[in-house]
């Protein structure tokens, strides 16, 4: 054991003191001089045309600088290509302030810019706009027969695999079978921080955009395409993000608006959306799922069929992987998966924590519970009988999969053996008690990333990569990786991120940051280590003479021979002796396709939940959750646990609270605020236990990490829904499960 062995421990967040003292600067907190404020005006209609914007009336107010709309916006890029970001779905991306047509409610249609925020808000409230309103359709129910199979579209989207076996015949011949439809409405990410961009005008057409985004390079490329800016004209910075959950994966209209105004007015501008406008920037789509299952006499799955239909906008075919997981989580020879979209007069949906999987998982895991009851089996026993050792979608083994251990450890911690199978058979504190479970699977992905490492003569290491920190602990885990690689204490390492002046990193999503950026950080530090070794070998009396890089190790501030620890040099002395003031190395990391080719790369989890239901009032209280996650190696026990705790909270919200309600008469979300879009609060918290089941996996990436941000959300919602059934005997198939559905 050494003092510079940081990976796998649980140090406090290195950015913690900044965050708890209010000193961390989010994108709306760069108070640059001579700042003007923009306030967005949103469409009150879902479909139609703007006839006239009476901009002159408010432009006459002293202090109002301009009203931007389609009536006066300058010539911008013409082709769709210029507006497409890294994960744009198929179709034509929305172009703000481009034309008089309105294609969704709350569409941003004007930006009022003034000397102060108060004045911009006032003028925006007074701005008169005349419309021609057309009839709209926002109800997915009307589109059941109008579903279509989308094209390949977005990066990361995998169309469902073709059917295998004979699913229909197997279903017909099954000993027991079920068929049910599951539904949930739209849900919104609602990170606590509002989407904000502060654009600093640097003169001569150059700008720095402090933007709330999960990908500074994604935004930079978008701005270059849309505004015809050169590489050196625009820098995008986001060092702290007040939550993302997918909402910042694509450039949002706040950054478009702020940059437009700054370039036109040649002045620094800040645009901040309202909480209401946070419901106009993408969402988890309203989804309908049909599940059919059948079992053989021995309780194995005979047939599994899963079909999903969800909404998208008129202009983009937003896609996510909803049903594919059902073909790999359990062993089944006869499987049919289907996936369709339907167009409505709404804004395009957008990836939201565990996109697709969170939706499909509820259908699959509630159906598995229904199937277990139909077959007369304990839900855990039923899953064990159908355990998948191979990914049948691609017919490959998993690089590692310890879901069985997750089941065992979580069930033991939870006390699953105390559960009686019969619904309504358990009571406590005068309430019905229910216990349910659900599991899940998520991708372990690595994508190309780059990093730079620099060490100064005083032994301080700085590592840079333009990734993001939205609460996931990026600063901390990258600091741990860098410090351990070069044998330094955490205090000697600074990790910098979120700036397009740094080496390029991918958008922060898909749970791939730890694997992708982490490997790049390790590689950059290794490359720097090789340079340090060369430098250390220069003196004639170097104890490391002739040693190769593999022969040495960096431990406790020393560089020493692995096999003879006495042959060592102090790292700080190496640079000081050499006379070099600084040493640096760049590196990038790509997935090792050759190594990965024969395997399916996935993380898994299971959640057990206990609920208490008041039979008279229908109120549901989640009392306990145990979540076990197998996601390779855990880099930081503390921050990883927090991610899983947060995932449990998200699963609880999805099960019992979250739904953005559309008033189809107006084509408008009616609960677009935090008072009416309910998310869990502290009083809703159950007792939560988090278990990590370690997996050794050198196939996924050299660090052996699979990512932890999304997998922990799976299973939780279904476990709660199944627990409610166990408590009450009522199977609620449309989320959220609110008390009226139980009465």
């Amino acid at each position, binding site marked *: 054991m050494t003092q510079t062995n940081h990976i796998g421990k649980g140090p*406090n*967040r290195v950015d*913690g*003191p900044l*965050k*708890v*003292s*209010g*000193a*961390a600067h*989010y994108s*709306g907190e760069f*108070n640059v001089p001579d700042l003007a404020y923009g306030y967005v005006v949103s469409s009150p*209609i879902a479909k*139609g045309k703007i*006839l006239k914007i*009476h901009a002159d*009336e408010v432009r006459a*107010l002293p202090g109002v600088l301009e009203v931007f709309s389609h009536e006066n916006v300058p010539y911008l890029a013409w082709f769709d290509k210029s507006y497409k970001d890294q994960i744009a779905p198929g179709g034509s991306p929305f172009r703000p302030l481009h034309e008089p047509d309105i294609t969704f409610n709350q569409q941003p249609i004007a930006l009022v810019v003034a000397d*102060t*925020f*108060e*004045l911009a808000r*006032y*003028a925006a409230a*007074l701005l*008169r*706009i005349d*419309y*021609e309103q057309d009839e709209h359709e926002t109800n997915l129910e009307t589109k059941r027969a109008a579903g279509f199979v989308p094209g390949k579209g977005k990066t990361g989207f995998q169309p469902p695999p073709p059917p295998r076996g004979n699913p229909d015949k197997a279903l017909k011949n099954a000993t027991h079978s079920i068929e049910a439809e599951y539904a949930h409405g739209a849900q919104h990410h609602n*990170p*606590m*921080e*509002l989407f904000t961009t502060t654009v600093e005008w640097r003169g001569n057409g150059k700008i720095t955009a402090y933007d709330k985004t999960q990908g500074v390079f994604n935004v930079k490329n978008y701005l270059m395409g849309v505004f015809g800016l050169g590489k050196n004209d625009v820098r995008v910075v986001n060092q702290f*993000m*007040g*939550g993302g*959950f997918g909402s910042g994966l694509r450039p949002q209209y706040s950054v478009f608006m702020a940059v437009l105004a700054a370039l036109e007015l040649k002045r620094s501008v800040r645009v*901040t959306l309202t*909480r209401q406008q946070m419901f106009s920037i993408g969402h988890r789509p309203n989804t309908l799922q049909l599940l059919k299952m059948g079992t053989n006499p021995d309780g194995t799955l005979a047939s599994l069929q899963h079909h999903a239909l969800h909404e998208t906008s008129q202009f983009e075919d937003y896609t996510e992987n909803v049903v594919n997981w059902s073909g790999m989580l359990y062993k089944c020879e006869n499987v049919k998966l289907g996936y369709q979209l339907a167009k409505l007069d709404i804004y395009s949906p957008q990836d939201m924590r565990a996109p697709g999987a969170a939706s499909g998982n509820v259908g699959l895991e509630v159906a598995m519970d229904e199937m277990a009851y139909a077959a007369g089996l304990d839900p855990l026993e039923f899953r064990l009988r159908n355990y998948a050792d191979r990914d049948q979608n691609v017919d490959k083994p998993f690089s590692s999969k310890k879901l069985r251990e997750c089941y065992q450890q979580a069930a033991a911690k939870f006390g699953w053996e105390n559960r009686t199978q019969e619904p309504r058979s358990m009571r406590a504190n005068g309430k019905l008690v229910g216990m349910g479970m659900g599991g899940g699977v998520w991708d372990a992905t690595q994508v190309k990333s780059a990093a730079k490492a620099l060490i100064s003569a005083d032994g301080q290491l700085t590592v840079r990569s333009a990734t993001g920190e*939205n*609460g996931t602990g990026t600063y901390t885990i990258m600091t741990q990786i860098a410090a351990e690689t070069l044998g330094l204490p955490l205090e000697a390492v600074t990790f910098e991120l979120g700036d397009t002046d740094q080496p390029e990193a991918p958008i922060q999503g898909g749970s791939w940051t730890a694997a992708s950026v982490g490997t790049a950080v390790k590689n950059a530090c290794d490359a720097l280590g090789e340079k340090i070794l060369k430098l250390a070998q220069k003196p004639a009396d170097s104890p490391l003479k002739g040693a190769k890089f593999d022969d040495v190790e960096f431990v406790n501030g020393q560089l020493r021979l692995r096999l003879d620890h006495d042959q060592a040099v102090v790292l700080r002395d190496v640079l000081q002796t050499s006379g070099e003031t600084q040493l640096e190395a760049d590196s990038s990391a790509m997935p090792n396709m050759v190594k990965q080719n024969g395997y399916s790369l996935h993380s898994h989890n299971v959640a057990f939940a206990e609920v208490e239901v008041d039979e008279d009032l229908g109120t549901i209280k989640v009392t306990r959750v145990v979540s076990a996650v197998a996601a390779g190696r855990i880099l930081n026990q503390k*921050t990883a*646990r*927090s*991610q899983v*705790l*947060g995932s449990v*909270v998200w699963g609880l919200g999805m099960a019992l609270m979250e739904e953005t309600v559309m008033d189809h008469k107006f084509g408008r979300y009616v609960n677009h*605020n*935090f*008072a009416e879009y309910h*998310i*869990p*609060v*502290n*009083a*809703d*918290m159950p007792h*939560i236990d988090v278990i990590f089941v370690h997996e050794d996996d050198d196939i996924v990436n050299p660090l052996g990490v699979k990512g932890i941000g999304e997998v922990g959300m799976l299973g939780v919602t279904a476990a709660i829904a199944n627990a409610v059934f166990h408590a009450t005997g009522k199977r609620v198939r449309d989320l959220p499960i609110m008390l009226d559905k139980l009465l």
Partner: protein
Amino acid sequence: MSQLLTSTPYSGGVPAPVPTGPVRLHINGETRTLQLAPWTSLLDALREYAGLTGTKKGCDHGQCGACTVLVNGRRINSCLTLAVMHEDDDITTIEGLGSEDNLSPLQQAFVDHDAFQCGYCTPGQICSAQGLLNEGHAHSEAEIKELMSGNLCRCGAYVGILDAVKEVVDKESSEVRA
């Protein structure tokens, strides 16, 4: 079938807004004079005029608690009150509770218990918790959970928040007993 939606022009032009004036605020022991329109919220005064961006805007409607500050020791939503109403008050923001290099016991407990992820709701959570301590509320776990429920956290760091607040509450009450 389309339908026309038009509005009536303002007679005599749009009404001019009320002019700004000097407002004296006592923030974190310092007196500041800010030039503000009367409808400037205390939250916007802090963030946009006083440069104290530790206080966060999450909804601007008193629904999320991110803007919580202490006014005369009591916790309030600074988005729901106007700056001009607080000329004689003592305002404490997160920056007044402790600094990066000199954290208050609550701030340190939040770091130790990983009671945040993105950190955006955190200053409001800490100010609320400080308010609970000042007011002598929150003795049991159930009370802390209930009384901290006006502060939303979308990252779901509630377990850590409870543990952090409880640690400081327990320490202070044992000091009182001793």
